[in-house]
């Protein structure tokens, strides 16, 4: 399951950031996202979270979103896995 979530998250980031195939494979837990990539502004993050909801069939509440979960790839992956575990 966790491996599936990892792959799915890399696919969503590929779609949002317009990465070349395979480019997201280089993301590790410390890869910076929100605040590190200029193109990842609030509208792009909103799109990313909405896409995450649709593809994982989860609901993300406003108060669950914090800087930490969005700051790195590892943070976002841990959040997505936790949401799936409680679903």
């Amino acid at each position, binding site marked *: 399951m966790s491996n599936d979530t990892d792959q799915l998250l890399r696919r969503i980031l590929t779609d949002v950031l317009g990465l070349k195939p395979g480019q997201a494979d280089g993301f590790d837990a410390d890869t910076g996202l929100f605040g590190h990539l200029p*193109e990842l*502004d*609030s509208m792009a993050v909103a799109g990313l979270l909405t896409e995450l909801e649709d593809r994982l069939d989860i609901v993300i509440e406003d108060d669950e979103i914090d800087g930490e979960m969005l700051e790195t790839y590892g943070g976002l992956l841990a959040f997505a896995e936790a949401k799936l575990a409680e679903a």
Partner: protein
Amino acid sequence: MTPTNWPCPLPDGGMSQEYALTFDRQRRHRLLILPALFDEGNRLRRFTVEVMRRLDAAGIDAFLPDLPGCNESLQPLGKQTIPGWLAATIEAGRHFSATHALGVRGGCLFTPVELPALHYVPVKAASILRQMLRARVLSSREAGREETRETLAEQARTSGINLAGYEFGADFYSHFEPLVPDSGATVIEQGKLGGSGLWLRAEPDEDATQSDTLAAILTAEITA
């Protein structure tokens, strides 16, 4: 490709000249395109025009009008109404003598009922607003202000709201929110285009293969 104007009825009974991009060679098949809305409209505009170029090459005329308050329009978005937009798209269809209509994403909410409609990945108005509200919550939080989507939506319904630079009047917001695409249209899902939707991109992008494929699907549907 010719830029032109078209006479658009306004909610107050007046008329405005709105902009449109057209490929018009007086051909038999004439497609009115209702563009994606707001932020998605910016991200999908080049893709939409690339599809129009291919339709032109395939012998289909295409017309991409601005809705009042959108793109190059001089009308304030905050003064537009949903019945006004519906009347505007019907008038655009008549003005350009369209034989078919294509909705792109949010544009699917406004394809005129009198034309056979094709919907490219239709989206509910509530989904468009959900994302815009979320972007507003995120940017406010960055600025140190705590807002929630629920309270913002409530504010939008009673006194209007600015979301991502788009000024929505209370009446427009309230009537827009429940809109869903007409179920009678022919739906073209993203899976048929061989790639992810370009509206997902943080920056506007293009994809020649997707433009080719969508144009081919549209040509087959329109000339069938």
